[in-house]
């Protein structure tokens, strides 16, 4: 029986010298794809799904607007609110916010500003259309409904 049990003298260790390289590769992947979180989102965000998504060309032209029920309902109530840069604003303040966002861009790019709206699926169209109306008044007419890609249902 012991005929088959050939004990070899070679070491059974897996070489781990390449491990740091693998980890570094992963690290670089995440460093490149990363966008550091700038704002804490204080509204509930269960974004609806859709199939016909399109990519935005230039990220520097995009300003984000979050709409949804506040997470802290005790403090802010449970009516959907609009959040921009860490603060809640009223629809009428959108014009001011848009002009501030436009100031960040160069002269030539100002009318190309895109407003990406990330709204919760339970938000009513009344609020959404109020936002649209204010954006029209602020002359920021490129808009995007930020949604998720639909996975097969």
């Amino acid at each position, binding site marked *: 029986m012991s005929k088959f049990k050939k004990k070899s003298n070679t070491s059974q260790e897996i070489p781990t010298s390449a491990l*740091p390289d693998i980890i570094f590769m992963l690290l670089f992947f*995440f460093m490149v794809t*990363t966008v550091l979180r700038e704002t804490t989102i204080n509204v509930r965000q269960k974004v609806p799904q859709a199939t*016909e998504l*399109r990519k935005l060309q230039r990220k520097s032209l995009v300003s984000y607007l979050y709409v949804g029920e506040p997470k802290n309902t005790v403090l802010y109530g449970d009516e959907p609110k609009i959040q921009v840069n860490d603060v809640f604003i009223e629809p009428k303040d959108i014009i001011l916010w848009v002009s501030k966002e436009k100031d960040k861009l160069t002269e030539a790019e100002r009318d190309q500003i895109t407003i*990406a709206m990330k709204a919760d699926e339970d938000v*009513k169209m*009344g609020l*959404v259309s109020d936002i649209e109306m204010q954006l029209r008044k602020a002359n920021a007419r490129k808009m*995007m409904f930020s949604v998720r890609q639909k996975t097969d249902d």
Partner: protein
Amino acid sequence: MARSKRRGAAEINSSSMADIAFLLLIFFLVTTTIANDKGLTLQLPPDPDQIQDVDIKMKERNIFKILINSSDKLLVENEPLNDVHKLREMIKKHVLNYGRDPELSENPEKAVISLKANRGTSYDMFIAVYNEAQGAYYDIYAQKAGVTNAKWRELSSDLSNPDNKALYDKAREGIPMSISIAEPN
């Protein structure tokens, strides 16, 4: 001569390198939000105060009316509809009618999709309907350009490439995407 020559290569102990890399990796994993800048695009009409009210007469047959009420029920061309996904085929049929069916549009240039929601309609439902309306047009363009829908959306997002631009203009010629979103009441 105090310089003693040592034999053997001087090595830096690199076994903790993996640990350091792991630490950095975990940091980036936690702080990461993978860039997500995709969505449904929309061009808003100009400021209502700056446009004069002009009555534009349109033939009833050219307008494809979609109404959504506050309980998310659809009324399409004055008939209730339960399945949102049916809209896509209906819109395509309407746009590409070329005057055949007297109830549908005269030609794609004149065809208009009119979408009207209620203030109480949920955003979710609106997105579903708007998605179908845009999807119908993308399907038409993609078919004309001879590519798939997904490929069409990709190439129409990057018009700086002259090949894309040429294809884009060719496919869209005579078929403007006229989706009108009325203010909800």
